[in-house]
């Protein structure tokens, strides 16, 4: 008997779903063992029945529930609660679901500030009142991770998560497991660059220029990006973005990590730890431009980002 799976996306970008499809051959091997009863990106199951007559939203029961995206509005909350009710094991897929993700950067602003900008502060838009209608769900007061709303059984972080881990977690469940998590290692632990535990010092560099490297040589011949004086969140970010083997994806592009896999463990305090990591190699963390936003780029839920009282733009 294939295991039943229901999938939903909330305040999401669909990258998590594309990542599932990018599983490649592993996807084709897994498919016969899974029976998708609901997954809007691929299958035409409807909340209100095939004739659109149902009185209330209905998602079929399934053993495994997968939800990507954060919880931004009333409807997301409703769909998530329905998914929790109907599925035995609920998986939070991706960093939006796990930590709020990029859209939780909006938590630096109030709802009114955002709506004012979008509907009355855009040069191309004919200013109008905020949309208000039974079919446009009101925003919640903040952009939330799933576990701020319901109990989550398994978290597959990443933006998007690597297909290896999606396949791995699902395989574990198919074998009867009920838990799964990534090993607690940092991105730096999987990074082949040269580290000398010191930097040239000076203010932290912005990515206004490229990092220094010889393109004909591998990453093992490149100096650590932090030690080159740029901010790289590798030290405080959970490893896994390159799947089971391979180097951190951003570093592969010769660009710094921005923390998309989230903190290494639940109790970690990445902002504090990162300050420590920088200080230890002689960089002054106070010189990081736009520090609060950049250090919480994928983790604005759980109260990490909040509107600040009147501050000059951008600081």
């Amino acid at each position, binding site marked *: 008997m294939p295991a039943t799976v229901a999938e939903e996306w909330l305040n999401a970008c669909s990258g998590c779903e594309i990542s599932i499809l990018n599983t490649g051959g592993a996807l084709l091997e897994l498919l016969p063992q899974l029976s998708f009863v609901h997954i809007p*990106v691929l299958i035409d199951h409807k909340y209100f029945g095939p004739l659109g007559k149902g009185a209330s939203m209905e998602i079929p029961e399934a053993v495994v529930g997968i939800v990507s995206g954060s919880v931004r509005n009333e409807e997301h909350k409703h769909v998530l609660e329905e998914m929790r009710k109907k599925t035995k094991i609920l998986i939070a897929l991706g960093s939006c679901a796990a930590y709020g993700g990029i859209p939780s950067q909006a938590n630096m602003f109030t709802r009114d500030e955002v709506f004012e900008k979008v509907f009355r502060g855009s040069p191309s838009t004919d200013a*109008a009142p905020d949309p208000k209608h039974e079919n446009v769900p009101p925003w919640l007061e903040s952009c939330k991770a799933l576990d701020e709303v319901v109990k989550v059984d398994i978290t597959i972080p990443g933006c998007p998560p690597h297909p290896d881990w999606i396949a791995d977690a699902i395989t574990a469940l198919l074998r009867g497991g009920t838990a799964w998590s990534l090993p607690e290692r940092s991105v730096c632990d999987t990074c082949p660059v040269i580290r000398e535990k010191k930097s040239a010092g000076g203010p932290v560099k912005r990515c206004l220029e490229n990092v220094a490297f010889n393109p004909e040589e591998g990453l093992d011949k490149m100096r650590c990006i932090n030690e080159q004086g740029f901010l790289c969140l590798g030290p405080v970010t959970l490893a896994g973005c390159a799947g089971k083997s391979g180097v951190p994806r951003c570093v592969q592009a010769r660009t710094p990590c921005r923390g998309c896999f989230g903190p290494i463990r639940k109790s970690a305090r990445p902002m504090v730890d990162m300050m420590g990591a920088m200080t230890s190699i002689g960089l002054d963390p106070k010189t990081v431009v736009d520090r609060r936003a950049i250090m919480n780029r994928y983790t604005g839920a759980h109260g990490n980002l909040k509107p600040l009282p009147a501050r000059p733009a951008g600081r």
Partner: protein
Amino acid sequence: MGQVINIQPITRIEGHAKVVIQLDDAGNVADTRMHVQALRGFEKFCEGRPVEEMPRIVCHICGICPWAHHLASSKAGDACLGVTPPPAAVKLRRLMQMIAYVGDKLLNFYFLAAPDFVMGPDTEYATRNVVGIIGAAPDIAKQVVHFRHLTAQILENFAGRAIHPTFSMPGGVSKPMTEKEREDILGKAQKLLEFSKFTIDFAKKNVFAKYLDAIKSLGVIKVGHLGTVTDDGALDFYDGKQRLMKPDGSYDDFPSGAYLDHIGEHVEPWSYQKFPYAKRWGSGLSMDLANPSGVYRSNCLARINVADKMATPLAQAELEEFRSHFGRPAHLTLLYHYARLIELVQCAESMVALLEDPQITSTEVRVAVKPRAGRGVGIVEAPRGTLIHDYETDADGLILKANLIVGTTHNNAAMNLSVKQAATELIKNGTYDQGVLNKVEMAIRAYDP
């Protein structure tokens, strides 16, 4: 008032929407609406972010076309900071864009659109999907999975991330391509080109011919078109001037920086998604099915309509064949699927051509940039349409204002019209079935929102 039909979620599309069909007492369509329920507020939370970080923030607007946002943002950043990226950087940006688009177009055609045609629009919903496709045509399905995976792999191996890239920044890109990488990717690109040619032939023989009746009737509307062309009128995805065509085929060209003179956005209380319209035409926006005004479309059908020609030879031959059947501009909504595959051929040919260009391995790929106050409009053609990023920076190079019009938004009014047309034609006297409702969705799916 009579019954209300709720189609939610709209499925096999890459976004979130809901259609509500209101019937009158006689069971005929009184009104229809496509509601978009999601709003994330990027325009606001980009304020204060360093402009060089923007390409790796805004790509998260869409996980299907992150490369389009990534590049539009890089171009807006180039303009804010007043820099011209080195030629090899532009070529690499274009190359990554083409590889990503080939993957996207394969995904769209085989996984999202094809079930309606291969299984048929009226089949039971449980089989009308990619799993059904795998059952019906396992060999082709295997190849699609393989080639999609290949596009993602090329992007990851070279540029780190296939989804939500970090490769491009104001001033250029983060790394050059080595000769070894070029040769390796070229071999793969040639295979992708072959599969792209197979795909359009397969579709012409087995799909479009069979569904000509549906193509001629479903969701048909006659509105304007928007796209991007080079100075000599060829379709371009990365750069050029914008062309806004009226329903009758006459058009205006404008430079990116002048978009505000040509395009406005209207807000309706019943959708978070705005309704862009052709401000330049001076008649505002009306979504009256009998007499629409100000409505234009974006995405592939619009692009191949506004372009005088395709940029590559095989795609050009396909366009000529297409035009011999459907003319210019072609209005039939389901022709989006056909147009998408003509574009697939151009993307695949361009990809190979870029890789055959020896300049692409130049090691000069980025000019260092300096923060400054400025404004920059960056426009690229995203898979779903003309994508506009308009930024203003302060003296520290932090974003003061960001205005974004994403590809699919341009189609909001047109999609609403097509839904109305389809529902009105198909639902009579209260009689309909799930096949009918699926056809209403097919009118949306064509736009690939």
